[in-house]
């Protein structure tokens, strides 16, 4: 059975390490915050200028001056700090963020990432995604294994415009997990979702990966 959205987030949470500073993208990556092990200290960065993001507020306690990068209301923690957008991206670009977990439309076998625009559709902009993939120490992508029409998303090369070139370290899909030791190596299948077969993954992956 392929992993559900919640299970994907749980699997991605296993990439967290004690003491990490982490930036989570919008969508499934945001759910990873729900699965931080209680005995682990992980500090969440929000690129609109906050380190130490707390949970969503209780109803009636929303503060319009306190939002995350997805523009959702959130709360602060005793450890929270705030800073400007320039400081926030200096932190990101400067390699101080240990891990960023992001969604993707396509990932190439070289680890190129495309997640910001589809030609012919209204382009909304890349936001902070290009800065994150260029700056964070480790990039984990969480995505469906295939697009809605069944097309593989882990493919020889990205057809969509890139967010970053050779930036992805790990790909977690609803069917399997692929990892590589460095950004020059090939991805290797390291895990299958329960009851998903190697044949199914091979059939739905056009990228050259090691099995």
């Amino acid at each position: 059975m392929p992993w559900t959205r919640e299970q994907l987030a749980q699997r991605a949470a296993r990439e967290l390490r004690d003491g990490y500073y982490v930036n989570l993208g919008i969508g499934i990556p945001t759910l990873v915050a729900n699965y931080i092990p209680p005995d682990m200290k992980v500090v969440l960065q929000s690129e609109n200028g906050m380190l130490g993001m707390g949970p969503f507020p209780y109803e009636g306690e929303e503060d319009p001056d306190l939002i995350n990068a997805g523009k959702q209301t959130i709360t602060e923690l005793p450890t929270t700090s705030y800073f400007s957008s320039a400081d926030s991206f200096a932190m990101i670009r400067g390699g101080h963020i240990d891990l960023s977990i992001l969604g993707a439309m396509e990932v190439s076998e070289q680890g190129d990432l495309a997640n910001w625009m589809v030609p012919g559709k209204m382009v909304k902009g890349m936001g902070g995604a290009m800065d994150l993939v260029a700056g964070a120490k480790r990039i984990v992508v969480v995505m469906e294994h295939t697009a809605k029409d069944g097309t593989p998303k882990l493919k020889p090369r990205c057809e969509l415009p890139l967010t970053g070139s050779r930036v992805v370290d790990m790909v977690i899909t609803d069917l399997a997990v692929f990892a590589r030791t460095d950004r020059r190596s090939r991805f290797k299948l390291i895990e299958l979702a329960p009851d998903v077969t190697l044949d199914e993954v091979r059939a739905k992956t056009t990228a050259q990966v090691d099995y």
Partner: protein
Amino acid sequence: MAGASKVYPNAKAALDGIVADGMTIMCGGFGLCGIPENLILALRDTGVRNLTVISNNAGVDGQGLGLLLETRQIKKMISSYVGENREFERQFLAGELEIEFNPQGTLAERIRAGGAGIYGFYTKTGAGTVVAEGKETRVVDGQTYILETGLTADIALVKAWKGDTEGNLVYRKTARNFNPVMATAARITVAEVEHLVEPGELDPDCIHTPGIYVKRIIQGERYVKAIEQRTVRKRGVA
């Protein structure tokens, strides 16, 4: 008292005589968080047109910069993300509005550089993507960097939580965002604050924007402080 007062009675007065057609205007805020609501309304009411607006986002329909889109006062946006605005989409698809997308961190750093007198900087962000097209690149230790140039503006409109009559500003929580860098990068920075106080009331060690950057300051007449994505958790749930 030496020196003219920076304090203006309201947003309309603060923009009087300084805005004109065709200007480049920086506008603080992330989404609707920390936007200069009163100054945007006043800018709309001046009727100036053909503006180039540098702002991370473009507001939403009927709020923030969405108001200046409705009145067609904006010719071009320099932004990182504009996904929340239907009027924006309509004007863009009709070819009535130009957009220059910048990665968010590149946008912030271009503004910082502009305010700090730095011509440009080399960054990894966007290397190997459409953002790099037409830009000088440099390879150092196997890593490709692209040259991005500083940004400045005629006017910056910023919003802070508290400010004193000298123009010293303090922001609150994530409403800080682009406001402090933009305050440094315009020929004339106009600030609006929720609380205008006398000198000495702000802790000098905790000022985010020193008054040198602020030419005019007002206490905002009215704040809506809209929330785009109201998200809550249930009580009793961890």
